[in-house]
């Protein structure tokens, strides 16, 4: 049991659960008051930080061949960037 909690994937899982709770808070106005647009951008950024950890540590891309890892990193940056820009323009 002790070894289970010393594993990197376990630390990542704990981080992902805490990040989910934080983004839930931001989605409900925590810390941003009436500045809901900033709260939403924070929610999207947290979501894609979580996505990156899933890629690197659960899907094991951290130790995968570089071109594959870069493809996923590019997807993360492009999709999160596009969503934030589109959200900001529409809000």
């Amino acid at each position, binding site marked *: 049991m002790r070894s289970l909690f010393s594993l990197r994937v376990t*630390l990542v899982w704990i981080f992902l659960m805490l990040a989910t709770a934080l983004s839930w808070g931001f989605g409900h106005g925590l810390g941003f008051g009436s500045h809901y647009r900033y709260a939403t951008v924070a929610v999207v950024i947290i979501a894609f930080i979580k996505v990156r950890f899933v890629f690197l540590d659960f899907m094991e891309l951290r130790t995968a061949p570089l071109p594959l890892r870069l493809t996923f990193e590019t997807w993360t940056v492009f999709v999160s960037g596009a*969503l934030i820009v589109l959200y900001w*323009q529409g809000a």
Partner: protein
Amino acid sequence: MAVAEDAPPGVRPHLPGEAGIWVFILGDMLIFASLFIVFVYYRGQDVALYADAQRTLNQHYGALNTFLMLTSSWCVALALNAARAQRNYSSRRFFMLGMLCGVGFVGVKFFEYREKIRAGFTLTTNDFYMYYYMLTGLHLMHVLLGLGVLAYLRQVAHAAPLSVQNFTALESGASFWHMVDMLWIVLFALLYLLR
């Protein structure tokens, strides 16, 4: 951040699973990326309608399902870890726990859909609900397929000792399941938390 370090120097790159599974995963991710972008674009055209419709969602279901998917992914990562140590019994147990969380996800989705349909929110109610059912329905199909994959991986984990082919199958299937988890992370943010 302590968990964000890169691979230690000297570790040889390793492609997890079959090359083909990564083509499939990337294809799926491109389709979902297009759908995410289309959803946020059209949301921007009628923010009031989307925001009003979003308020009728039960946010607790979305959060609960996120916790279930993350935990399921973690269990599958532990199952692979155990398999690499040739601890087959432990590996099968973690695959089973991962499947149970996945089944829990499907159960929560069932109750969520039932609640919405009974309240009169269907695919044709408005644009928000059209995307809601389309995106979550497409994702749910991936979850159901993934549960079949996990059941297969649990069978693979019976082999002793595990062969190179067995590991290729385990890594391919696990990667697919983690992608399903990743897609839900984005869907949860877009459908439930965007304000």
